[in-house]
């Protein structure tokens, strides 16, 4: 298990299901966030053709589905799904830690003035359980 998140190839989905994890209707609220996803997943070229995938610290793969909206730059929204064994329940604690790791990876990728240190401080201010993780500095 590592604290890092990495972009990975599409996994084999046989025997798996997509479990909803998190959704964002306005990924371009701060345009640098939309730019990060466009850059990271080559979305200018790929468009709606396929989702993106990342591996999270737990080893689980997450699917990022990019949404288009008339009149707005692409992507306008994102849905994140955990790829899990089809008939197995989702471990909420693992999901929560993975999502936090994905947010930290995103903030690091978006870059200044956004910082992982500010994200961690915000998480601690609101007592987010994942900020207590031993994987975090």
């Amino acid at each position, binding site marked *: 298990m590592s604290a890092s998140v990495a972009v990975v190839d599409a996994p084999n989905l046989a025997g798996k299901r997509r479990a909803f994890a*998190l*959704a*964002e*209707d*306005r*990924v*371009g*609220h*701060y345009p640098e*966030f*939309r730019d990060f996803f466009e850059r990271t997943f080559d979305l200018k070229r790929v468009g709606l053709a396929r989702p993106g995938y990342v591996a999270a610290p737990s080893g689980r793969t997450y699917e990022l589905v990019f949404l288009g909206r008339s009149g707005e730059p692409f992507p306008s929204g*994102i849905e*994140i799904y955990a790829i899990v064994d089809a008939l197995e329940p989702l471990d909420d604690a693992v999901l*929560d830690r993975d*999502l*936090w790791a*994905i*947010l930290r990876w*995103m*903030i690091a990728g978006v870059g200044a*003035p*956004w*910082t992982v240190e*500010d*994200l961690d*401080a*915000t*998480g601690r*201010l*609101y*007592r*987010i359980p994942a900020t207590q993780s031993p994987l975090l500095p």
Partner: protein
Amino acid sequence: MHYVDEGSGDPVVLLHGNPTWGFLYREVIPPLVQAGYRVIVPDMIGFGLSEKPTREHAHTLDGHSANLVSLVRQLDLDRVTLVCHDWGGPTGLSCALSNLDRMRALVIMSTWAWPTPPAEFHTRIFPWRTMHAPLVGPYLLGNHSALAGRGIYLSVVEREKFRQRAQAAYEAVLPDPASRLLTWAWPRWIPLDDQARAYERFVWLEQELSRCKLPSIIIWGREDEVFDAQTFAARFKRMLPHAEGPHLVTGRHFLQEDSGPEIAALVVDFLRRLSGRGE
């Protein structure tokens, strides 16, 4: 839209903001009713016991203002005293300034009504902009209910009393991530530059409020460190030089939690003085 409607007499409409609901006014309502007013306390669509849309694009500043206009017209309210707090300010004042013939007076508490940006706090990456950043907002404020669960607590003076007596009521009406959508949608409606969605509305608000002659009173939390009295209450006073106050009471941003009865007394006294002058 859910609303409380108690008492009879000239209507006093109490407006809350993010992430609260009519419960915020529980200690303000009884003294106003006893003093002979009809007290109406709507829960903003998206909060409290009102409907909660689950798509962010369902929420707009003008749409929420129009919801209040609709309430005022459907109840055929006249001689309204509008009590504004937080987002109840921009929405309520938009309603008041576009329906002046139905208004009697304004009560202004810990809010703003001008463009870019309301406070230096709102320009900071930590914690304000990070809290509602893309994906972070739905995670922190949605999955973890950061505003109702911790944000209000941090913005009252008597925190232990609040935790014991009130916090559960704020959390209970936002029971799951989808129900909390407006808690991260509202922060995104605060203009940070002249390209922001609500910029023109706030320009209009500032212009119209500066021309407004409605009797007004400004009430502020002495300990409010986000919408601090020195900056915000003073700016409202410059816009509305005829306004009474600012009256400072014990309170941070959610001053009703610390000073509900004192706020009610100030409003009752203010309205009695208006009646004494035949207004």
